[in-house]
């Protein structure tokens, strides 16, 4: 997993015959009235079990579109997307919902907690519908919020809210954790705490994790950094040594 790969592709099939995600020639075209926007222009990519990948790129580079397609929120216009061997390309609404429900954990830039539910309940709402969940309290302990179980979002700081969101994402024991700008709304020191939580989940639970960011520093905590620009993978960097988030700052 630590070898260099040529630029413009992020596949690694030689080393791993069973990648978690496999994308081949994925394109995405949005029809914006008279203009067609090419968000992805042929992306090849693999994500491997247990790895932590950071996708870097400026806005408009296509990284969010790619994450949405991997997360089953959107479908590719062309190309192939496989998840553990099953084809996501032609999946319908219903299958995608099932897929998200049981396999994917999401962390959003703005947390998207349910304001009417406490921290514990925000986690429970997901565990209630999954097949093999953790106890919500355990999930919150993992992000060090055991003393905030019965607080409502309005009573939590931004960093705490984001950690609740991480607990919610991992409590169902997903195969993959997808984080879209998880520190985007946070200051540096709070952001580090949140990244610590993500890093810990990745290490302790072995959940395949993809973090989207435009913050280059965060790339230091990844196994691999996939740089994107103009709808293409422009560079893939495999880190020989990963930094712990607590050693980073920006």
């Amino acid at each position: 997993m630590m070898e260099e790969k040529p630029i413009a592709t992020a596949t690694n099939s030689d080393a791993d015959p069973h990648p978690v995600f496999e994308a081949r020639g994925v394109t995405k075209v949005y029809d914006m009235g008279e203009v067609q926007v090419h968000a992805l222009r042929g992306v090849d990519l693999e994500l491997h079990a247990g790895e932590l990948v950071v996708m870097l790129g400026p806005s408009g580079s296509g990284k969010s579109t790619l994450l949405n397609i991997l997360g089953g929120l959107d479908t590719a216009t062309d190309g192939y997307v496989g998840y553990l061997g099953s084809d996501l390309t032609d999946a319908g609404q219903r299958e995608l919902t099932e897929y998200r429900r049981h396999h994917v954990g999401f962390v959003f830039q703005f947390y998207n907690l349910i304001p009417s539910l406490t921290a514990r309940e925000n986690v429970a709402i997901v565990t209630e519908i999954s097949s093999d969940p953790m106890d919500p309290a355990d999930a919150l302990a993992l992000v060090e919020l055991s003393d905030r179980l019965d607080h409502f979002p309005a009573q939590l700081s931004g960093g705490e809210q984001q950690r609740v969101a991480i607990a919610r994402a991992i409590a169902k024991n997903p195969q993959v954790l997808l984080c879209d700008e998880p520190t985007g709304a946070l200051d540096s020191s709070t952001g580090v705490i949140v990244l610590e939580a993500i890093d810990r989940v990745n290490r302790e639970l072995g959940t395949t994790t993809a973090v989207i960011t435009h913050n280059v520093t965060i790339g230091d905590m990844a196994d691999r950094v996939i740089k994107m620009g103009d709808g293409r993978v422009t560079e893939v960097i495999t880190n020989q040594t990963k930094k712990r988030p607590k050693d980073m700052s920006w």
Partner: protein
Amino acid sequence: MALAIALVMTCGVATFVMSKSTLDALTGTLEEFYAEYRFAEVFATLKRAPEATTERLEAIEGVDVVDTRVVAAASLDIEDYREAVQALLISVPDEGAPQLNLLFMVEGRNVDPYRDDEVVVNDAFADAHGFVPGDRLGAVINGRRKQLTIVGVARSPEYIYQLAPGSLIPDFERFGILWMGRSPLATAFDMQGAFNDVTMTLVPGTRVDDVIDEVDLVLEAFGGIGAFEREDQQSHFYISQELAELEQMATIFPVIFLGVAAFLLNVVVNRLVQTQREQIAVLKAFGYSNVQIGSHYILLVSAIMLLGVVAGVALGIRFGFGLAELYMAFFRFPYLNYELNADVVVTALFVSAAAAFLGTIAAVRRAATLPPAEAMRPEPPASYRESIVERLGLGRFFSQPTRMIIRHLGRHPVKAVFAVVGISFACALLLMGQFFTGAMDYMMEIQFEMAQRDDLMVTFVEPTSRRAVYSLEETRGVLHGEVFRAAPVWLRNGNKEYRTLIQGVAPGGDLFRLLNTQLEVVDLPADGLLIPPHLGALLNVVPGDTLSVEVLEGRRPVRVVPVAGYMEQYLGLGAYMRIDALNRMLKEGDAISGVFLAVDGNEIDAVHEELKGMPRVAGVSSRTQAIDDFYENMGETMLVFAFFYVVFAAAISFAIIYNTARIALSERGRELASLRILGFKQSEVAYILLGELAVLTLLAIPVGFALGWALCIYIVESLQTEIIRFPFVMTARAYSISASVVIASAILTGFIVRRRLYRLNLISVLKTRE
């Protein structure tokens, strides 16, 4: 959403304009018709007075014009019509037109002077039988058969609403008004140089009671049975009642609708200000003033309101015209002045504007005074807390989505209460509409099935010996007969008085039974009167008190009679006693006024034929026919109203539920989309949103029932008249229909909102803050 609010406003304005403009049109037309055709103001009937008495009447201070007439009852034999028909013959002067109560000739001409076989008939009667000038009628006038020729068809201000004597329901087939030359009519009834009916108008500003007292004094010697004013004149009285009902409708409905609209506007504008915080901030940062921001929202509200008012006025005029025409067919005005008075529109606009601005002023103020820096920041996450239900320890039974529903309702309790009240008004309106049809059916069942059970009621021209019943019973097809005696009377207690009929009934009868207020069949007391409670209230007597009874026929005795008890009567106000007691009071033998008959259904035509040939028979009325007439005449307008109730209630519940749902969707769209991303199915997310609506709707139904009850009781109380008193009965059907319509509109709304929910853009919520 704006459309839904405008819809509710439209309903409010439409009902207001409809009922108010119809009311204006009817009262305007009525007044004009009365004035133009010189409708009298004081009326009196008497036995017989010489024409010279006119001068004494004219001499009474305040009397303007006096017009004397000969008025008499007759029965008609119409070819190919199986039943006997009652007629009222009214004289017209031999020379020239009557001075008062002029005729509006619809067709043909007036009678030729001195022709004894020409008549003008009233047009409702003519329509019912298809009479045209030139048709001929057989008549029994004072016991003599005569052939009459119809020369004209006319309407009179005196008989806009026409009822046969003693009847409560208009019947255009079996009762007609015939105008005939004075001389031939006087000859037939031995009234040459005399009159038995007088009408007069007054000098403006005269006290009508004083004139009535004077007229009574003059006519007492000639068998006058008491003059009465226009207010008590039958046709006018009925019209006034109808107009009073319309007036009530012109108030209750608009108030409900505009209240609901104000509430909806409040909710929507509040939400709008919330979502447009940033735009407000930007505008303010660019230097827009509070007034400019405020007036933007006021303009918006005004636009919605104006849309509602314009549509409401247009719809109101359309409906109003239709309603006025419906009434017109019923009242038989010769013409209808339907024009929309500007003040109706101005009032509608003013009231709607008041409702709209009262509903939104707080939200607009909030928008206008929002400091720009604060407005730039997104609103902090909404703060919630555990609901009461959960604090009671019931929380563990709830799933997280259920908790979301409960806590969201608990966060905006006032809004939830208003929504519940709004929907419950819709439910109450439905209940009210259903109440009327239910009450009407119930009333008819009690009056015409439990109390009255005869097949035919035969009345004689004048009181007759009891032996008449035997000859009737011998008629083929008649199964059995029960006699009755009816006498017109004044009932008096102190200065309270009421003119009605005392009906003497044979005890133990099966065809005409009296019911007590518990609706149990009661035996008549040996002595004393049974009266409806409403009559007791009018005369200020209760059982045990006594009434002074002045009989208005025969030797006209005045007696003191005890009120023995109450009896239930929904239509009309009569007094009842045992026939032998009444005979005794009248100092007569075993006289009867008529007979209730039970008839073999197969022989009914033969019985009618036989009765037609009996000169002593003044009229025959059929119970089933009365029921049909009731539904045809009174029922129709009521059902039109009931239909409006349903349409409007559905509109209200739809508007409220839809608005609530749309607001909830806009407030919680992000939350629900997040859940969808987390793997919630469409149906699971729909549960959270629609569950809230379901709770509101289900709470609103019992509240609506209670509200409907209160409204119906209020209406029943305020519509208690001498003609009709609705019993307060709420059927299970009424409840179930009302609840069903509310639930159906909730479900329909649910489907519409669900479609929007399913189209939520999942990706956009990832990238935006609220």
